[in-house]
């Protein structure tokens, strides 16, 4: 009985800590939530106010004159960079999974899969540094001008091509970070399909590609959706890599796909020491409010992914 209680307490620490984090964030951010109201999510101006002026009292709260907090540009930046990352990573991830599961003989398959999974082990700050040193100059000098010339007729793809720091670069770096998630999960799922399915498809005259594309993958749709949602969760919370390549836009929405943006996670990291300069403390609490919003979105996305993945056993073929 005693061992069981110890186990129960230790196991309970994990969900308890998650609830504790959410509770701490909510309590700490409450003065900011109260002050900012609903215009926090829709406002376009993140303004700490005049740091060197004396605080004034507005509606019972001490604030710096001119202070107002709105994070619409952050929400847009986060969603757009995640969207671009997914658009790039999903086809590549599916392609890699099919290639690894079908087209590679067993021996090299082990090593290649190992390499793909290792991509997920690279720390995000390393991705950020590589992005800063290699991707940004490459985009600025070669890729973006060529894109603007060829695709300039699409709204949002034309001039100016900017400096290489921006939305598309962040999307590219993020996509590299989430491809292993999709590829590894899907490859495992394709592998675990019973041989009988492949044999019956072959017996009907299907080519290898047709077998995968029309028979196996459609049945794995929930797994694919689950993996993509998990990848979305990772991309939403990514801080360091985005911080170094996004251009850190403040209070502006990107006009083109090459323009600088800012994401919620990167913003909190880069603005914390500035916020500590605010003698009223409201700036730090507003950063905590951003953290709360990001936390809720992340938890919701991850919960959805887990539910989708949990309700599906790849060996249990229903439909298709």
């Amino acid at each position, binding site marked *: 009985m005693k061992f069981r209680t110890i186990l129960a307490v230790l196991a309970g620490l994990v969900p308890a800590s998650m609830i504790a984090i959410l509770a701490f964030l909510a309590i700490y951010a409450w003065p900011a939530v109260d002050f900012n109201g609903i215009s926090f999510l829709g406002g376009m*101006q*993140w*303004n*700490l106010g*005049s*740091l*060197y*002026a*004396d*605080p004034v009292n507005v509606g019972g709260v001490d604030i*710096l004159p*001119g202070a107002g907090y709105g994070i619409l540009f952050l929400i847009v930046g986060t969603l757009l960079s995640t969207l671009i990352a997914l658009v790039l990573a999903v086809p590549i991830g599916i392609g890699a999974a099919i290639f690894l599961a079908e087209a590679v003989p067993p021996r090299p398959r082990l090593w290649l899969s190992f390499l793909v999974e290792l991509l997920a082990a690279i720390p995000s700050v390393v991705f950020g540094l590589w992005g800063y040193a290699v991707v*940004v*100059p490459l985009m*600025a000098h070669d890729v973006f001008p060529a894109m603007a010339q060829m695709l300039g007729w699409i709204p949002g793809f034309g001039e*100016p091509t*900017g*400096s*290489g*720091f921006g939305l598309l670069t962040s999307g590219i770096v993020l996509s590299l970070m989430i491809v292993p998630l999709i590829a590894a999960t899907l490859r495992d799922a394709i592998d675990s399909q019973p041989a009988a399915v492949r044999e019956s498809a072959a017996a009907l005259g299907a080519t290898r590609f047709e077998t995968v594309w029309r028979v196996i993958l459609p049945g794995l749709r929930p797994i694919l959706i689950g993996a993509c949602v998990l990848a979305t969760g990772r991309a939403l919370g990514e801080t360091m890599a985005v911080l170094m390549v996004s*251009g*850190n*836009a*403040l*209070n*502006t929405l990107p*006009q083109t796909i090459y*323009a*600088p943006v800012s994401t919620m996670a990167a913003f909190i990291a*880069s*603005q914390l*020491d*500035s*916020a*500590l*300069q605010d*003698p*009223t403390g409201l700036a730090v609490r507003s950063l905590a409010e951003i953290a709360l919003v990001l936390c809720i979105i992340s938890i919701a996305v991850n919960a959805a992914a887990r539910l989708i993945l949990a309700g599906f056993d790849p060996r249990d073929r229903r439909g298709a």
Partner: protein
Amino acid sequence: MYTRHPRRWSKFALLGAVALGLATAGGASAAETGRLLETGSSLLYPLFNIWVPVYSKSHAGVQITTQSTGSGTGISESVSGLAQIGASDAYLSNALEKQHPEMLNIPLAISSQMVNYNLPGLNGEHLRFSGPVLAGIYQGKITKWSDPEIAKLNPGVKLPDNTIVPVHRTDGSGDTFIFTQYLSDTAPDWAKSIAYGTTISWPSVNGALGAEGNQGMVNTVNQTPYSIAYIGISFKGATDQDKLGEAMLENRAGKFVLPTDATVQAAANAMVAKTPKDERVSLIFASGANSYPIINYEYAIIKSNAGDAHTAQDLKTFLRWALNSGGGNAASFMQQVSFVPLPASVRKLSDAQVAKIGG
């Protein structure tokens, strides 16, 4: 599989661990190395980096660690007690000083700030800018290099028609503080709508970039043609090496000057008399035909009730060395970072503040 006498083995292991722990703890207190953490201004960082090796050679009992994190971090970490020396180009605001009356703002040197740009073909010319023109650029009112406001100040120069990319600091920055003070002093609409600070709400300008630290500003301007940025003078070596353009700024007398020892000294001579006892004062926009408009004190933000007596003593010894014209304030150090040593009157005020540091 059990060892022969499991209980005896585990007892020895426990004793060994305790002994090791005591030995290291005892060892640490026996060595008595004072540790000072300096963090903050990226403008002051190069000077600290040439000070610390020289100081450590003659003062072996103190280990000083330096970090370049931005003046905002320097102030907040000094206030919270995480760092013993908060380096900052900005003094504490009235509100912060009222909240934390034990904080001392001690000038260690006089520095200045350049405005650098990257115009292919024109980086050798020293283009002229005034405060209102710079304010217009950073507000998005002046968007092209060929704008008549810029052309008016630079007759005879063939300015390209490209869009200006203004670069600003994303971290809490003393450079932002002194640059925005210059803009506030020269452009009334900037003073009214935006004012100055280590962090401000930069007006939204299409394509404007943010960079972290002075080194980040140098890198961004170097990588981005048609950009303009404000960079601390201690990075002149880096901007010269990258062949970036350096601007001449309009001073209060209407003349356009570069930041040289002579122009900074002239501005200092005009402004230092105004320095109050707590040494919190702006030196921006000095009068005088040869004065450079953006100069400032480099502050060490120190908590006067600095931890234990040992740390306080280490701090005082270091600061006295730094302020001494034979020690840290010697021309040999200052010239390497293009700073100007403190005048004697200010040194006296700083020494008086150092005396206030008590355990």
